[in-house]
């Protein structure tokens, strides 16, 4: 089911939790609503669910406008952050509950519940109470309960935030698998950019109630629409520096990083990802910049090196076999098309 959000606004008094949001989600996509806490992503999700009423704007599921339709009539499955399993019912009763409410005969309801349980691999736990399940299992019960009524849209609020690190990676793959199997349009809320990038078909990044960008993960990572998106995606964070452009050349604290750029002269914010440097111990090119490591951190796969250009601090990542210690001088160039320039308003000017 295609989901279309038109000029959606949610205001609490003077505060706009969601400001004029427009978004179209294609049928069958898995979409991550990503942003820092308080950015309005959960509010958006609950408006899609119908539990929150928008102040203005419209929501369409397919051809039908659902803005004023009650949650139970929207054909949605909703998974809460804390799962909201009914604590006094068994797993079986929890999964059957939405069907019983829709007056599905008990036998059929039970069959469908077991079918669902099989898909989320819960067989054998059906007679347990939620309390006797691990976090990951509870999560799967919640998903089964949301899917058992065959909704057209699946909404998940921070589905992984209550799980430990290892389980989180497993569960997100699990969510992806289930979503692919059911082929249901799915929207999940998260504040974890890695989580969003790894399983989403598309990511919607939000900040302060405003949709910043809606894009395929790889494209968004490589071509962020603005400085916020650039800094929000990726760990370690993208390096942001004061950039000057003269005659098509990008400088940082007097060091020329790139020439031949078609940008008007002036001051910009520059951005370059830690993995986008070429580092050598001897000068590899005439315009290689000399720098000294101020901190070196070994993370196993790679070395994380900090250095300064003028007042700008940078982090870069190199393969861990590189022999660089604190104070070691090295030479660096930047990979093609990896320097981002942002205007004073934060909007992306270009990639060089």
């Amino acid at each position, binding site marked *: 089911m295609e989901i279309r959000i038109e000029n959606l606004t949610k205001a609490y008094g003077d505060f706009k939790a969601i400001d004029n949001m427009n978004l179209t989600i294609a049928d069958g996509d898995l979409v991550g609503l990503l942003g820092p806490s308080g950015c309005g992503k959960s509010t958006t999700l609950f408006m899609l*669910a119908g539990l929150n009423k928008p102040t203005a704007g419209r929501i369409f599921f397919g051809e039908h406008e659902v803005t004023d339709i*009650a949650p139970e009539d929207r054909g949605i499955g909703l998974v809460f952050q804390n799962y909201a399993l009914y*604590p*006094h019912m068994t797993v079986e009763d929890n999964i059957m509950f939405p069907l019983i409410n*829709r007056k599905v005969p008990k036998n059929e309801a039970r069959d469908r519940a077991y079918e669902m349980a099989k898909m989320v691999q819960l067989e054998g736990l059906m007679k347990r109470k939620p309390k006797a399940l691990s976090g990951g299992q509870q999560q799967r019960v919640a998903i089964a309960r949301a899917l058992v009524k065959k909704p057209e849209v699946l909404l998940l609020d921070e589905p992984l935030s209550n799980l430990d690190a290892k389980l989180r990676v497993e569960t997100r793959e699990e969510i992806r698998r289930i979503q692919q199997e059911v082929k249901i349009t799915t929207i999940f809320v998260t504040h974890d950019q890695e989580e969003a990038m790894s399983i989403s078909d598309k990511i919607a990044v939000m900040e302060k109630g405003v949709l910043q960008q809606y894009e395929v993960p790889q494209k968004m990572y490589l071509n962020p629409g603005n400085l916020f998106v650039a800094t929000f995606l990726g760990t370690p964070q993208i390096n942001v520096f004061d950039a000057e452009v003269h005659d098509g050349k990008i400088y940082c604290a007097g060091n020329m990083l790139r020439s031949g750029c078609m940008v008007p002269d002036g001051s910009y914010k520059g951005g370059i990802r830690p993995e986008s440097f070429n580092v050598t111990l001897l000068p590899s090119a005439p315009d290689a910049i000399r720098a000294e490591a101020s901190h070196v951190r070994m993370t196993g796969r790679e070395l994380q090196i900090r250095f300064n250009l003028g007042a700008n601090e940078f982090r870069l990542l190199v393969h861990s076999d590189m022999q660089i210690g604190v104070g070691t001088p090295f030479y660096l160039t930047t990979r093609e098309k990896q320097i981002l320039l942002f205007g004073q308003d934060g909007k992306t000017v270009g990639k060089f």
Partner: protein
Amino acid sequence: MEKKSMKGYLYLAPALIIILIFTIYPLIRAFMLSFMEDYNLVNGSYKGINLENYIDIFQDRHFIKALTNTGIYVVFVVPCSIALSLIIAVLLNSHIRFQGVFQTIFFLPYVTSTIAIGIVWGWIFNSDYGLLNQLLSWFGIKSIPWLTSKQYALPSLIIFSIWKSMAFDILIFLAGLQTISEDLYNAARVDSTPRWRVFWRITVPGIGPMISYAFVMGMINAFKVYNEVYALFRGKNGPAGSANTVVFYIYDKFYNQSKYGEASAAAVILFLIVLGLTIIQRTLTGKKE
């Protein structure tokens, strides 16, 4: 270690001493008294150690009447109070306007003296110009002699007590309701759960421990009913003893008739009933968990 535990007992001592003197000792003493035939409080003499007191009270129709009255009282007051309180608590919890005002109103009976409430209800029940009869007259019901007839004394007491004990029940139910996650109700909404099923499958189980607690406490308190009788019937036990209760009987035997043994025997019987019901209740709710 030794020294440390000594210090601990020292801290406990003041409370322990008071409990020993005013609770444990009287308990044992009453138990002993109940077996002493014709005990004399002045010189401590008694005829013998036997079951005479128990035989006497069970042959006393006033005791049987008090016991039945108390039984009827408990059977009506506890479940009615819990049911009504549950409904009111759920309504109060549903984000209505002036929620705080209503909460205060419903909690007032709990902090007000029973005697004061008794006086007010005395007026409500008044057969000539009472509010209740006024209200009933609108429905064409003739004026009822609530407090002055043998027939209506116990029902009046029960109505009064239900109203009074609701305050406490509402309070703990409200506290319980607030522990039920809002998400559960939202989940139920998305699952298109009918209201009555939300109530029975989410709300009631959610405050199950509170209901069970209210039940035990309500039952124990109801078996001990005395103040309410005293307040409503101005120190009497209703017209011709028609609203007599076990504790009222014990009090009367002890202070007015100076039959210490019989009073103690009645107290022991009451204790055993409450103990028995509490054990039954605990095993029943204990099994569920």
